[in-house]
């Protein structure tokens, strides 16, 4: 089974637009939205929910005020400043459990924490696994892992051999979680100085974890000079450019309509995305990594 994850470093480069289009173009696949913080893919795919599951992960300390003798030890030892006035601030608590081990009167218990939901849905393009991290929750990395795990199971049981996942922004915990063991990463960038800076860092993460990469330059005509610079940088690092997609308002219009752009228009954007998908599927077929 192959898995391609689409990343961008920074958000807003058009990652989800590209993933939505691949969903429409790819033959047999399972879709996974690993952007569990701010999932948008469902807005393009009109999913109907098949299954909704709670995601329990991590713990939060709770102080029983009747037992607490206000000795202050827990407050002194907590390294995350999560206890004030003998009360735990659940937002700051990292759930490490240190306080519960040291309290001399056993007033502290660790409570399981429901940190979000994950869903399996059906779309016109195949099954979609997506998730919703609770507000201000930790463990987005673990929820990403759960989404990928589900996507794999579905792919196995339904005989699909490809997973397309929409990755989270950044380079931290959820990104690492979405990347480990993937067959290929497509990095969507844009020709802005900040986009280029972010691309460098997300390339570093992929290299660090040994995942092969392709780059897509979106809105490539926004700044031709920067586009050329990205191309030469990629060339010098042996990174292939899989596609160059021009800027077009049609993309925003397709988002408003809630339709992947390749199904909304026949213009240049669509042609370029189709060509890119060709390059990518060839790469996936040839990659020996299972």
């Amino acid at each position, binding site marked *: 089974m192959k898995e391609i994850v689409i990343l*961008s470093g*920074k*958000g*807003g*480069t058009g990652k*989800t637009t590209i993933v939505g289009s691949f969903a429409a173009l790819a033959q047999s696949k399972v879709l996974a939205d690993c*952007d569990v*913080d*701010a999932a*948008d893919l469902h*807005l393009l795919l009109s999913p109907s929910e098949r299954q909704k599951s709670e995601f329990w992960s991590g*713990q939060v300390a709770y102080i029983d005020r009747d037992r607490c003798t206000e000795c202050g030890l827990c407050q002194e*030892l907590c*390294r*995350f400043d999560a206890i004030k006035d003998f009360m735990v601030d659940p*937002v700051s608590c*990292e*759930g*490490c*459990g*240190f306080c519960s*081990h*040291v309290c001399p009167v056993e007033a502290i218990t660790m409570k399981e924490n429901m940190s979000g939901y994950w869903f399996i849905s059906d779309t016109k393009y195949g099954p979609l696994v997506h998730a919703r*991290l609770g*507000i*201000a*929750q*930790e463990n*987005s*990395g673990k929820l990403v892992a759960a989404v990928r795990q589900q996507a794999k199971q579905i792919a196995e049981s339904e005989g699909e051999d490809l997973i397309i996942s929409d990755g*989270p*922004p*950044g*380079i*931290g*915990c*959820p*990104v*690492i979680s979405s990347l480990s063991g993937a067959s290929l990463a497509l990095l969507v960038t*844009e*020709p*802005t*100085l*900040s*986009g280029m*800076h*972010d691309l460098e*860092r*997300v390339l*570093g*993460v992929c290299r*660090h*974890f040994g995942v092969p990469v392709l780059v897509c330059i979106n809105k490539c005509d926004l*700044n031709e000079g*920067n586009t050329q610079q990205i191309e030469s940088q990629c060339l010098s690092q042996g990174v292939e450019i899989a596609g160059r997609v021009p800027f077009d*308002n049609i993309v*925003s219009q397709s*988002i*408003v309509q*809630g339709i992947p752009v390749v199904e909304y228009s026949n213009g240049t954007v669509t042609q370029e995305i189709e060509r890119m998908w060709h390059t990518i599927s060839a790469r996936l077929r040839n990659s020996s990594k299972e």
Partner: protein
Amino acid sequence: MIISVASGKGGTGKTLVATSLALSLKHSHGVVLLDCDVEEPNDHVFLQPEITGSKAVSILVPKIGEDKCTYCGRCAEVCTYHAIAVLGNNVMTFPQLCHGCGACSYLCPEKAISEESRETGVVEWGHSDGVGFIHGKLTVGEAMAPPVIRKVKEYASNDGTVIIDVPPGTSCPVVEAIKGSDFCLLVTEPTPFGLNDLCLAVETVRELNIPCGVVLNRAGVGDAGVQEYCRKQKIPILLTIPLDTEIARLYSRGIPLVEGLPEWGESFRQLLKRVTELVDERNRDTEW
């Protein structure tokens, strides 16, 4: 006053707003811009600050003194993150998984565990054109942004105006960055994606009990969903920036909006004025 600039997803113009707001205030006293988007810090691209100092960010991870260790297994048992394993006469640590909570070293009955620091990022500070500047950078390959964000915020003094560029999303790094702000500006664009992410961002700031207002970027594309939502939720739209190729071009070249098109300076100063009024109003209300 501390104003954070956030958006449910990235790429909506958060960096544009944070940098231009900071630069528009450069003639007033004590303006500091904190870039807390430590996974992908960008503000320095626009501000080109002169960096005058830096400090490594590290967390304390356990170091096992094998001479004292009796392989009792207590450390592995108390570590919630499975960063220590005891197998027979062998203690293994996995520093990448360690959150630096300190439980293992404190609870080891033999006092066999000392702590050493492990670098996970860096904080740098300096200034640019009269604006103080601090940012953090998470080391590539590291997972945990919050400790780096905490350090960036420690370096900011509280007098004057502090502007915080918040990472995208709604999870722990975002909360870490926004916590303690007097006001949160939510930058979004008028599309269904923008609206979806705005709703999540609003829930987050409400959870933290911080007042918020919206900056609508790239106005002119998309639909009216964001405006309708703001009206219903009684969230003020404090600034509207149109979809404009000149603005996009300046951005692509790393030129702050208020430098490239100085007429925008006044709009950002007005924005600050409105925010100040809203914060004052709210403080009066809560005093009541």
